[in-house]
């Protein structure tokens, strides 16, 4: 199970990478493994205001449909449109090509309240 040390994590299995005043996000390696082969990703809209904990996307695998929650509050400024045709990026490269969107942070401090890699590993192990 890959859990990069330089990322922050939500208890709903999303990751966040802070890039200046924005945060790039996706689902974790653990999440993609649990979901199985992803066949469809419903992407959020650029410009949408999102609240931490609210649903922003849906990921459909051969097993189930799962909601993806915004790990932070802010505005969606960029969306990974490639996932529409290449949903397998979520399985193959969850922390790279499988990113879902970039959110402009309403509150920089909010990221610090997410789990660090060690905290997330502990959550998953339990």
């Amino acid at each position: 199970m890959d859990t990069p040390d330089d990322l922050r994590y939500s208890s709903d299995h999303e990751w966040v990478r802070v890039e200046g005043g924005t945060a790039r996000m996706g689902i974790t390696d653990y999440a993609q493994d649990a979901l199985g082969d992803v066949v469809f990703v419903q992407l959020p809209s650029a410009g949408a205001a999102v609240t931490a904990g609210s649903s922003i996307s849906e990921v459909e695998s051969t097993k189930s449909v799962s909601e993806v929650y915004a790990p932070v509050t802010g505005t969606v400024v960029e969306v990974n449109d490639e996932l529409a045709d290449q949903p397998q990026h979520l399985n193959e490269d969850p922390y790279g090509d499988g990113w879902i969107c970039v959110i402009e942070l309403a509150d920089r401090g909010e990221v610090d309240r997410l789990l660090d890699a060690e905290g997330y590993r502990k959550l998953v192990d339990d």
Partner: protein
Amino acid sequence: MFELSSPGRRSWSFRSTDLPEWDAAELVPAGHLADEPVPLPELSERDLVAHHTRLTHRQYSVDLGAYPLGSCTMKYNPKLADAAAAMPGLASVHPMAPAQLTQGWLELLVELGLALGEVTGMDAVTLQPPAGAAGELTGLLIMRAHHAAERPDRPPTKVVIPDSAHGTNPASVTLAGYSVVTVPSDDRGCVDVAALRAVLDDDVAGIMLTNPNTLGLFEEDIAEIAGAVHDVGGLLYYDGANLNAILGVTRPGDMGFDIVHLNLHKTFAVPHGGGGPGAGPVAVTERLARYLPGPVPVRDADGSYRWTTPSRSIGRVHGWHGNALALARAYAYVLASGGDGLRRVAEAAVLNANWLRQRLRDHYDVPFDRPCMHEFVVSAAGLRRRHGVKAIDVAKRLLDEGFHAPTVAFPLIVEEALMIEPTETESPQTLAALGEALVRIAAEAPSEDPGAPRNTPVGRVDEVRAARRLIPTYDARPRA
């Protein structure tokens, strides 16, 4: 059939008659006429019958062997029910025939309603809904009508559903205009009552439960749950998908439920799964009877029958009188079984499930290791960690052993779930063979064949590619 098509070939040719011939263009307005004939396959009856007979030989069905597809109750349907439904007096009646000419049909429907009321502990029944999910929506619309009448100023907006629920439940709730509130299961696999109490308020219209739940476990706190939901003015909806487990033993009405749907195609000898149509009657308590879809058949004091519409009916939910011949099958099954026979159905279903659960518990992970009702859930999580063998791989291997697969990846709260419902109609020998096959598959996991199934007419299909590149029409098939 398109591949077998040959231009000009026909299954029927009409004898020439002395009736005048009409040109379609004279009868149909020009705007509605097609420019070219519809490209239908052209086959002789002989080719057509050979084609379909060939397909039936490639099928696996409940008539061939065990079909332990959890939550679906794929039990054998006695042919007696088919014979009853095929009687010309039932099968050849037009649905518009007036009540005075169809008294026998109405009597059958009234008597079936009474029997289903007795089985569920309810007071009134609609036989219209054509399937389980249609029954769910009907029940929720009755719930809505009740709250609109009782609390017109501020009707509730939410329905509570446990996280182990059938997927149709949240879909039906949404379709009925309610929002879904999910409650978690506790470590025994049942509704977490404390978590339920925490979400209950006067904005809750009701709760949807199936009991036993999808883990095959009986919700032992059902009386407390019913009290808590009723205390906030909510109603209890019973998803009858798992009714096979409790027939003649206990009743949703006695547990405190207000609305129940039944899947006659699971529990009452109606063909199921592509062989439909099904039937999803809804039964309610006395205070909700006035909201039932109409018309409903009633018996008058003089012994005659007629159609009537309840005073505050939510309206029709199906054309005509529901899937009437499915209802005839169910009535035949009820009469042939009798009350004691229906109870034996539940007893044997529960016994078979527990026998098989015991057979498998040392070979698969068992997330909730206690006596089950009509079905149980094991997990392939350990097989996956140790050998990379997933629940779907176990299911595919079982096809090679000559059985239908169990339900996989459901309920969602169990990792690599295999949901197994042997039903009451399988013999001890069949159960032993099924158990033996599943034990062997687990033992062979270290050298798992990723290409299984190999003995079936169609091998391992690429489900991922099929879902990612959906081609829903014949015309869009890639050409060679």
